């Protein structure tokens, strides 16, 4: 049986394994280390031989002696794989994907129809969850995307689980395009017009058990037409939901106490007063000299007095204003807080769920 990193865990990295090189939170690149190869990044170059001698999860230092860069070499999972896809790719993000799998009761052995394949990111997650006893029939009508997905599925050792097909399920249905006999108990439609595909489903879903469906549509009007089509074909328990997911990061925020601000104001005031007193004393000294009299004692004393109060060594700067301070640096007080990403995903799609009971076997 063919191994797949999406179905089987491995510990040591083997020649030509699919490895996800983690550079930063937003930058993971799939690589295939082979003897004497190298991987070049802005964090330095990394020798494949070094990677091949490592375990999955290892931190790999840059091979250049002068560089401090590193990467982590990660074992693939559908979720990490989806993070490694180019940023502008349309993918079903993990919060949607994981909820859909949970709601559709995708389990080991489940047979699933997916249309369209798209970037095949959700296809990987489905394959992982249905496992070798399951089946994922995935349909894509955009030829170059189909080609890419088919190649990926083969390269990722998923051919025994996933059957990619090129075709227009809205026009031609599922059985026609695929060439296999389908009996899916879960259906995922991510199509511009799912209502055109829904009528084709009756012949390709399970005959002896419930079939569950999820239609994934960005616009409300698509939802309305989808629901009409589902109702027409007697799907039950129709429910529409949205999944939202916020990503929080842990941060530290400097604790800025009013007491410190007061000390700073005092420092400023003291310096200003001292300056003023000094200037007054100088002016008074000049005037007194010009008038041939002693300088005013009070003015002189004030200047002397403000010098006798030891000023803070330099400007009092309790929060390091103007300095380069990193979160959590010593010498300051910090508070644990959480912050959401600057750019929130506020919508992916509306998810319409329903189920179809198995046809009645005998009239009671």
């Amino acid at each position: 049986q063919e191994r797949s990193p999406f179905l089987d865990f491995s510990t040591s990295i083997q020649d030509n394994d699919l490895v996800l090189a983690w550079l930063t939170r937003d930058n993971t690149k799939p690589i295939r280390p082979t003897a004497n190869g190298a991987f070049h990044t802005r964090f330095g170059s990394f020798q494949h031989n070094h990677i091949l001698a490592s375990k999955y999860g290892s931190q790999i230092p840059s091979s250049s002696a002068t560089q401090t860069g590193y990467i982590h070499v990660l074992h693939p999972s559908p979720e990490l794989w989806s993070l490694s896809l180019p940023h502008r790719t349309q993918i079903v993000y993990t919060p949607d994907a994981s909820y859909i799998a949970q709601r559709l009761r995708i389990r080991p052995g489940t047979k699933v129809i997916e249309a369209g394949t798209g970037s095949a990111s959700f296809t990987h997650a489905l394959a992982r969850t249905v496992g070798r006893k399951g089946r994922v029939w995935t349909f894509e009508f955009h030829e170059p995307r189909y080609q890419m997905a088919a190649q990926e599925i083969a390269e990722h050792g998923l051919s025994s689980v996933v059957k990619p097909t090129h075709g227009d399920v809205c026009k031609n249905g599922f059985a026609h395009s695929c060439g296999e006999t389908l009996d899916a108990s879960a259906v995922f439609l991510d199509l511009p017009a799912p209502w055109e595909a829904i009528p084709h489903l009756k012949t390709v879903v399970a005959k002896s058990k419930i079939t569950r469906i999820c239609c994934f549509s960005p616009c409300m009007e698509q939802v309305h037409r989808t629901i009409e089509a589902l109702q027409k074909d007697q799907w039950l328990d129709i429910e529409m939901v949205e999944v939202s997911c916020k990503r929080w990061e842990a941060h530290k925020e400097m604790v800025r106490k009013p007491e410190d601000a007061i000390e700073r104001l005092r420092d400023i005031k003291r310096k200003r007063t001292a300056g003023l007193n000094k200037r007054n004393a100088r002016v008074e000294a000049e005037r007194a000299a010009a008038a041939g009299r002693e300088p005013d004692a009070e003015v002189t004393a004030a200047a002397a007095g403000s010098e006798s109060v030891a000023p803070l060594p330099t400007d009092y700067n309790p929060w390091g204003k103007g300095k380069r301070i990193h979160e959590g640096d010593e010498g300051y007080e910090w508070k644990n807080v959480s912050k959401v990403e600057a750019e929130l995903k506020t919508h992916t799609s509306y998810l319409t769920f329903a189920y179809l009971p198995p046809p009645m076997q005998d009239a009671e």
Partner: protein
Amino acid sequence: MNEDIIQPNHYVLIRLPSLTLRVVQLVPHTTINAGKFGSFYADDIIGKPFGYTYEIRDDKHVDVIYSSEGLFASSDVNADHADEEEEGEEETTSNGSTPVPESKINTNETTIDDTSIQKLSMKEIEDLKKTEHGEKIIQQVIKSHGAFEKKSIYSKEKYTRRKQQKFLRRFTPCSIGSSELIEHFQLKDYHRVLELTPESLGLMMSLANVHPGGNYIVVDDTGGLVTGAMLERMDGEGTILFIHENEHPNFEIIKYMNFPEEMTNRMLKVLNLLQLYHPEEEEPVKRLSDEILAGMKSSRRGQYYRRVAREAELTTLFDQIKNGFYDGLVLATSLETQSLLEKLIPAVAGSRQLVIYNTAKEPLVDTAHDLMADLRVLAPTILETRVRKYQVFPGRTHPLMTSRSGGGYVLWGTRVIPSNDVRAGGKKR
């Protein structure tokens, strides 16, 4: 574990028109109590596929209903229950937040709140229930409503549905999975499952990369709900090391999931915290000679062999923990996680996932800070996933007005193996 057909002695979830849920065990040749909706014979539904709705007859036998009706006589698109005001309070909506007649057959310009429009008394309705049932009662009740025809079409629908919830003796049996159990406890004792939602649980299962053949560690304070969700996705292959804080593990909730006992016995390994933290305190089983064993009662001998086998199992588990054997770590506990992680991170293999659930975000923020300072965990991130449900009656689409809170937060990180060769200055990214 055939989930498609209703099995004898299995637990199933019974959905009722009142939108309440019941978990019942289908013991053959018994009657099943569906509350005020009556009782029915278990045998009538055992062996049938899931997905049908039944109506209870007076003789406790059931008729299957196969139509677009489902639990209700009208179409079954999810309705917002916040809209369903109490009798007499409906239709107070010229200004405000309730959906509103599109075709204003009857407006509510002159509606005066009034509950005394139903001409049937409680007593009369009770009598009716003795002779009629289901649809017929509802028709009677509607006929006796003084102002039914003056209602807008939406109000008519709403009224009819409310009566259906009251008088229809229908039910739908559903196979019990982790989502159904959440739904059940949401209505009942939500804290017992740490306010988990299907979306948070699904996210955890995906992030933890749970699949057949994996070996996972779990600390699970949800009566086994999280562990059960993992078993659902493992198909009998692989193991789960279940860490717990009590004398005996709490699997109360797993039992409803109808797993074969052989399978759970094989897959679930159990350690309590004392064993996890202090394996050295395990007292070795004193070996008995063959003679002594031969002289023992067979029950005591069996006990002895079980203790020896358990000792061997413990040795294996302690080794696996020490050697980073595991393919994932899932925490869903109200225990403080810092110390647990210190103990369990070494048990997880490189590049495997750590997933930590909590009802509140604040403890996870502290944990994330600890992990960010710990080179063994990559990019800890806290996720908050929430599902929002809509009412999608045609012409009246809007999100439900209110929803139960819950869902908590999921901290996700990847176990990595720091290199000694990475020079300082290579800051955490």
